[in-house]
């Protein structure tokens, strides 16, 4: 009967990112959603609970405006939510998020297993999961597309570049999941209605224990042009080389 914590981010909906004429990214008119990969983590937690019992606690670190995300998360299966929030939490870098989560979890939330998405669908730094495991001093298994639980032993299939790596670990542990681990459920009407009745524990920054300085500073955020570039290369060897180089520079190959 594992006690599971599932972490989620109330993330900017990347589909709402539109380049301004100035090349800046306007973040004042965007919608928010539960980060896509975290939906997979929530679903994995719900499925583990259905199979093994226990409990599921959803946790997020965000500004108070993310309150809306709590109901969304709770409608996807968790029993309760922990809402670590402060107005200053609007641009946390992964080290801060992980430290805050670790502080709160260590003091308040007993657990056997922590589930995270492999990264967030907005910034996709893929750091919070492994950093959180390191902060808590527990084993970490990343990029998992299948979880099997046998008592306190967890078997996981990691999908890596060179194939599948099946690993075994004793709980407590942290697992980050890939999108193909499951198809997240679309909450039914009753799931949404019942989500409002589930308990939410609100935690302020002062209660998370310690300081959480930023170690990474964003110095610029520029929109990539959505207009097609319409660059043409000649149909000779040099042109083809230039094309491959251009593809490499744009990150399209590799």
């Amino acid at each position: 009967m594992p006690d599971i914590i599932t972490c989620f981010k109330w993330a900017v909906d990347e589909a709402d990112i539109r380049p301004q004429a100035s090349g800046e990214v306007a973040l004042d008119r965007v919608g928010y959603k539960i980060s896509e990969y975290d939906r997979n983590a929530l679903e994995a937690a719900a499925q583990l609970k259905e199979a093994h019992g226990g409990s599921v606690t959803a946790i997020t670190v965000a500004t108070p405006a993310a309150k809306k995300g709590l109901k969304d998360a709770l409608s996807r299966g968790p029993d309760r939510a922990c809402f670590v929030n402060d107005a200053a939490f609007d641009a946390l870098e992964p080290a801060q998020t992980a430290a805050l989560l670790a502080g709160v979890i260590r003091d308040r939330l007993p657990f056997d297993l922590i589930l995270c998405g492999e990264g967030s669908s907005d910034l996709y730094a893929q750091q919070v999961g492994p950093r959180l495991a390191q902060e808590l001093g527990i084993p970490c298994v990343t990029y998992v597309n299948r979880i099997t639980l046998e008592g306190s032993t967890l078997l996981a299939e990691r999908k890596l570049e060179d194939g599948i790596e099946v690993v075994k670990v004793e709980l407590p542990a942290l697992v980050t999941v890939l999108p193909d681990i499951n198809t997240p459920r679309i909450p039914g009407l009753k799931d949404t209605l019942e989500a409002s009745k589930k308990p939410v524990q609100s935690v302020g920054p002062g209660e998370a224990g310690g300081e959480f300085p930023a170690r990474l500073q964003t110095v610029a955020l520029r929109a990539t042009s959505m207009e097609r570039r319409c660059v043409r290369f000649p149909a000779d060897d040099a042109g083809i080389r230039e094309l491959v180089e251009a593809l490499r520079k744009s990150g399209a190959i590799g």
Partner: protein
Amino acid sequence: MDFRLTEEQELIRANIREFCQQYLDPIAVEIDENSRHPQEVFDRLAEMGFMGMPYPQEYGGAGTDFLTYAMVVEEISRSCAGTGFTFSCHTGLGTGPIYEYGTEEQKQKYLVPLCKGQKWGAFALTEPGAGTDVNAATTVAVADGDEWVINGTKTFISQGTFADIFIVFARTDPAAGPKGISAFIVTKDNPGLKVGEHFRKMGIRCSQTAEIILKDCRVPRSDMLGKEGNGLRMAMASLDNGRIGIAAQAVGILQAALDESLKYASQRIQFNKPIGRQQAIQWMIADMATDLAAARHLTYHAATLKDQGLPYTKEASMAKLFASEAAMRHASKAVQIHGGYGYMKGQKVERLLRDAKITEIYEGTSEAQRMVIAGNVMR
């Protein structure tokens, strides 16, 4: 008036939208072409608790307000108006009268499976010779011992081919005019009930529309719905409620027309720029967005009045009249924006135009709505 949705309503809207994108959009062209009822979609909707959603949980519903229900009809219709209609017709006309007028016994027996999506409901009022002029109905019910014996023909009955439970209106007192009509619950397995072939329609082709023939159809007295002679009043009240559903369906069509137009206008290049940069297109889109907002406000307003227990007949008629005519107008504009491609089969805007037309006709034509509205404002 404030139509800001609650967090719950926003989540429900987002979820039903995701559901439609995942399960309905991919089959919408096929069910239109083949006039196929997408039962698999409704099985999922039932599993997710959407069927019977505005009715109390004790009867298998979800106990939401009517505004949330209207929003769900709108979102389903945005994806496929035929499916949105089947949903609203079952939930509104096929289920509502039993909730409003049924005895506790009738509710347990019929309402619960209707709300859970285990049984399909249908509303059998229209006759070949009695459309808007409901009082011209000739179907009769004659008392015979513990039973009523019904004879007559009903036409354009939605869900007719597969409904399990029909609410049939028949004249029980030929001398009493409008006060001589009563309602009955007739089940599919009644040997006196024959269902004809489903009609081939211009639009909402996945909705199954059929004629039903009642020949010496015997129903127990306990299956009369509401009071004897009260049928026409019940039918009219049910249609008020149903009109919000049709208005919501038209709002969904309007939204889809706008969605498609915006997408196409930004992608179609003519004269070296997207056609959306032409003022001619911008004006069409501005009008479309404005009428969409107006139609939605009227519809949500009528639903809110109903939720508050206030009279809403006039508002429901206004919402249906405005939304359906706006849907027709702008579905046509959406085809115009798409040019020749918009006229091709398999295009969503082509389907929207065909689907929009019926919203001006059923559950009271635009002319009938104007009669209702005039009757309310000129008294």
